[in-house]
């Protein structure tokens, strides 16, 4: 009953200082929100990052670095230093340990989106997230040379529908003089959202890539142009590709096949395990994520310092009040509770508001985050977040015990003589 009385006193006292209390509460609420938000966002970013590629046992490209290979072949960032020969690809993909292979040919673009040449095997074997296959939002895979399949983001950004014609550009920069306008592609399929770079890719067949470049030599259009129809009857067998993905019959063979590729005599090649390369890349960019979290923790600490300042300042004004309570029979340890419960109350209400804000933000930001391939479910507020909240409340009690202890000592020293 006495505890209830003390809580009532604390509550009324806080209410009496509405304005500063609201500000303090606001600052705690925002920091809790920030901490939860940053923590969740970094987890989701990492999750979505590691989900980019799945099921592929080895990633093979011209010899360079594993991170670079991953960047251009999976994330479509940067360019390959070199291509690899079709014969090498054929030799390796026909190896008895290989279950499937997806050749990739990069280099062209369309209005800022990368174009990737590949085969039907891509739609069949490519996996992302937890072994999820590609699915069609509309249409079907490419079947003829001038067919194209695009990711959902390309369709949304550029407003394409099935049957639309696309003019691809040579190289990464879409400029007038480097467009393959003589050979437009017809949109036959749009892929479902994956939350990976696939959403931002334009897929054509390897033959399509060959047809585009049949009259291009050393980076520019040759004078003898070949029409789209003529190209169809030419030999469209690719001689080079940029990289390829391999699926093996058995995981046990990964390292053996990797070694075989890395030691391939006729062409310098590099085979990497996508998971390891992803981990390596994450180590590079994960620093930023850690920095964000550290900042969030410091913002929270800062608002605790603010809380402490407010309570300690009020303590001086409340000296009189404490002496009155003492004269009424209030015990020194009750005085301690009176002051310590204040910060606890602030923390509990602040956390509650922060969580509420966090959940609201999840709902409101869903569409924005989807654009970045992020999906933050409600379930991301789980036991780990509750532990975080519990720690915040625990710390607030520890902090609250500072003014509590001071008031306790003060009430013993002052007696009834109140210094005004």
């Amino acid at each position: 009953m006495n505890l209830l009385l003390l809580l009532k006193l604390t509550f009324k006292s806080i209410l009496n200082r509405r304005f500063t209390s609201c500000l303090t509460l606001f600052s705690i609420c925002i920091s809790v929100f920030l901490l939860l938000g940053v923590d969740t966002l970094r987890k989701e970013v990492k999750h979505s990052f590691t989900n980019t590629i799945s099921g592929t046992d080895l990633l093979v490209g011209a010899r360079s670095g594993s991170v670079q290979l991953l960047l251009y072949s999976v994330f479509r960032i940067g360019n390959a230093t070199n291509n690899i020969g079709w014969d090498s690809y054929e030799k390796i993909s026909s190896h008895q340990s290989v279950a499937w292979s997806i050749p990739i040919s990069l280099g062209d673009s369309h209005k800022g989106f990368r174009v990737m040449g590949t085969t039907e095997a891509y739609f069949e074997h490519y996996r992302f997230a937890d072994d999820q296959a590609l699915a069609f939002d509309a249409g079907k895979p490419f079947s003829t040379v001038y067919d194209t399949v695009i990711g959902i983001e390309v369709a949304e950004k550029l407003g394409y529908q099935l049957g639309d014609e696309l003019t691809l550009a040579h190289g990464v920069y879409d400029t007038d003089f480097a467009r393959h306008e003589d050979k437009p592609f017809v949109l036959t399929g749009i892929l479902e959202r994956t939350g990976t770079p696939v959403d931002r890719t334009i897929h054509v067949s390897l033959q399509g890539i060959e047809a585009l470049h049949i009259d291009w030599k050393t980076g520019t259009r040759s004078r003898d142009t070949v029409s789209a129809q003529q190209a169809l009857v030419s030999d469209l067998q690719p001689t080079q590709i940029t990289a390829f993905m391999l699926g093996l019959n058995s995981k046990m063979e990964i390292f053996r096949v990797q070694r075989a590729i890395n030691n391939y005599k006729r062409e310098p090649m590099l085979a990497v395990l996508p998971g390891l390369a992803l981990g390596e890349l994450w180590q590079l960019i994960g620093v930023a994520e850690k920095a964000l979290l550290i900042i969030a923790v410091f913002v929270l600490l800062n608002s605790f310092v603010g809380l402490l300042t407010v309570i300690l300042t009020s303590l001086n004004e409340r000296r009189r009040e404490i002496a009155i309570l003492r004269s009424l029979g209030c015990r020194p340890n009750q005085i301690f509770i009176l002051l310590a419960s204040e910060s606890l109350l602030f923390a509990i209400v602040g956390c509650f508001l922060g969580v509420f804000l966090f959940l609201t933000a999840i709902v409101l930001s869903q569409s924005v985050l989807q654009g970045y391939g992020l999906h933050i479910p409600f379930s991301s507020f789980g036991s780990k977040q509750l532990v975080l909240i519990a720690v915040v409340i625990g710390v607030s009690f520890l902090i609250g015990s500072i003014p509590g202890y001071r008031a306790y000592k003060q009430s013993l020293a002052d007696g009834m003589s109140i210094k005004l």
Partner: protein
Amino acid sequence: MNTNTPLLKVENLRFRWPSGQRDVLDIPELSIQKGERIFIKGESGSGKTTLLSLLGGINLPDSGRINLLGTDVGQLKQNRRDQFRADHIGFVFQLFNLIPYLSVIENITLACEFSSRRKAKALSKSRTLEEEAYRLLSHLQLQDRCLLKKPVSDLSVGQQQRVAAARALIGSPELVIADEPTSALDADTREYFLNLLLSECEHSGSTILFVSHDRGLENAFDRSVLLSKLNRADNRIKTQQREYVS
């Protein structure tokens, strides 16, 4: 209680503040009878407030005994002492007696929240604590309920002191200790307040210990004691220092 045994008996009381060089109080003997109205006169700095702290059990004497209602206050553990104070003593201070964030009525009933004994006594007189608070206030000439709904800081000093008196009196504690309760009041209200306080103490059967430097008030009391005669500790140096500082 036997009427011959005093309500309060102080013997060989000595006290100095932990940081102090010398004793503030050295009182060989002081006794107060039940129902007595006693006036203790002392200059500022003569140890009045310290004496009251000791009587209330907020501070402990270095030596000697304080016997209140047959209980040696100094022998009680701290929690028991605090409870004892809540149960048996009502305080009125010089100024700012009220807790700013509580209403007038809450300020009064707060005394009962810390003492179930006083709560029971209050409830034996009225149906609810609020009613008892209103009853005491009307005895103290504060009937205007509109006024009582205002924040306590909006009340005049005289009104605040009467609310404080009501808090000290609710639940009829055996002893009411008033520490310069009139010094912030002007001459007319002083008289008025004092009479209300004394008659209400008589009404509830409480013994009153009134401390003030104002000699003009002592006629209203049964007995007047000069603290400087009571207290053998020499406070003159301290007094001089205070004057020098101010």
